[in-house]
């Protein structure tokens, strides 16, 4: 019994590479640009260029490629299922049947659609994985806070929103340990969590969830008091010890991303078939 074992929250791999040294803001913006591009890519050519680019980034950042793909393993079956669904179920008027079996028939447009969404998901996943592997959660929140700052002017409490994330990250492990103890305290009284059907298992959630949530609310009350007594009143008037600095590496990275996205946009606009 060890609940905390599988917690890979912010699977950050510390390093000193070009990618690691980038300002978190640069990495967040770059990731956002890449994600937005991915939402529009529909051609194999663009994906090919994307592959070269991400492979290069993975290489530069010193992430063991096996490790990067590790997180993909658990969702592989669903990924394959998604591809199969598209292959057999997606069709547009005029699509050709390329393969049929029993009542199922696969079409060329189905195949194309299956490939496209699988590639899109794979690349989206790769982009977020690179970001979280090369950036610690703390610098991510720092970067985010800094980036969202201008939105204060339009009334978005950006600092406060980021603070909720900081607290969430801080408490995941604490609550995990607590959950571990609660589960064990109930096991010690004879609850067998691994036995029973759907309904019986659902019933066994209560002796765990009630203490978990009630203790969490108690912790919240204490943390509110502790934060208030440390003069926290929200984001207004707050300063930061750590200031972020954009360096030459960030300029270089920005240039690279710009050129890359220009190329992708060009492909999207001119070469890509409009489905």
């Amino acid at each position, binding site marked *: *019994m*060890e609940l*905390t*074992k599988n917690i*890979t929250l912010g699977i950050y791999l510390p390093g000193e590479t070009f990618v690691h040294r980038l300002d978190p803001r640069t990495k967040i913006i770059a990731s956002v640009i890449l994600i937005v591009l991915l939402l529009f890519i529909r051609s194999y050519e663009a994906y090919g260029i994307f592959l070269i680019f991400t492979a290069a980034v993975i290489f530069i950042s010193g992430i063991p490629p096996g490790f990067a793909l590790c997180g993909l393993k658990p969702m592989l079956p669903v990924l394959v299922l998604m591809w199969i669904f598209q292959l057999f179920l997606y069709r547009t008027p005029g699509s050709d049947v390329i393969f049929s079996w029993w009542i199922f028939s696969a079409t060329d447009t189905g195949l194309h659609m299956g490939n496209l969404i699988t590639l899109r998901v794979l690349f989206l996943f790769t982009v977020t994985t690179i970001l979280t592997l090369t950036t610690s959660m703390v610098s991510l929140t720092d970067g985010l806070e800094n980036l969202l700052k201008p939105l204060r002017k339009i009334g978005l409490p950006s600092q406060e929103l980021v603070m909720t994330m900081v607290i969430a990250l801080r408490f995941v492990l604490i609550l995990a340990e*607590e959950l571990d*103890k*609660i589960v*064990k*305290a*109930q*096991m*010690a*009284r*004879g*609850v*067998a969590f691994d036995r029973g059907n759907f309904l019986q298992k659902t019933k066994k959630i*209560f*002796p765990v969830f*009630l*203490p978990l949530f*009630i*203790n969490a609310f*108690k912790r919240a009350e204490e943390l509110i008091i502790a934060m208030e007594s440390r003069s926290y009143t929200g984001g207004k008037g707050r300063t930061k010890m750590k200031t972020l600095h954009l360096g030459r590496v960030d300029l270089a990275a920005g240039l690279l991303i710009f050129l890359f996205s220009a190329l992708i946009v060009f492909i999207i606009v001119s070469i890509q078939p409009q489905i």
Partner: protein
Amino acid sequence: MPIEVNGLFHSYKKGTPFEKEVLFDINLTIDDGEFIGIIGPTQSGKTTLAQHFNALFIPRQGRVIVNGANTADKTADLVTLRHNVGYVFQNPDYQLFAPTVGEDIAFGPRNQGLAGEEIEHRVREAMEQVGLDYGTFLGRDIYALSGGQKRRAAIAGVLACHPRILILDDITAGLDPRGRDEILGVIRKLHREQNITIIYISNSMDEVAELAERIVVLDRGRIAFDGTTREIFSHAEQLYAIGLELPEVMVIADRFRELGYSLPPAILSLEEAVDAISTALHEGRVAD
């Protein structure tokens, strides 16, 4: 119901880059009716070790045998084993969840498959054992209990399963002196009157010295000492080096010895200290 631990190792997050060894080659036998204290600094492995005793952890290396059954055995009935080896956690809030005290105490027996009068009997008995008045507290909301009452309710919830071995994991932390004395009284009585084996994990050297007959000292996952309470506390310097301390009476006795008086080694209780010091004062300094 003896517990036997042979060559037990344990590590957290096994198979990940964050793997951390927490228990090394633990060998230990606990006999029926013992009152054994487990002490050690935080993260020395006390809780991890104790959770092997009732199969909350299953050994991957080494063996834990409880009453003849190997906990790692796939056919072992762990649910029954856990009823026989009760575990009370430090924080009663981890355990209490039902709306009333009575319902929460009945939770364990109900998991054992008991019903009706037997449950009522068990609840009444357990409440008596911990000194919670049946009439007053049976229908009391668990969230309306004081800290000391909560702890007693939590102990009752485990006692209602009729354990032969009771593991108490730092259950007096945060209690005031009176609340602590009440809980200690309950535990002492359980051990004396029902002959329940008690495994008492604590950060308070005074409590352990007062209650336990035998002490196991853990230091970074290894058993540093295992012996009678008196033996253990005669290793003052080593205990200090591990990050533990002596009970306060013993500190005083030590200082008194430094004055040149002769005192028996390892004085455990205040009464012993008073007697020993007065005898020594009558006899005068050895150095004189």
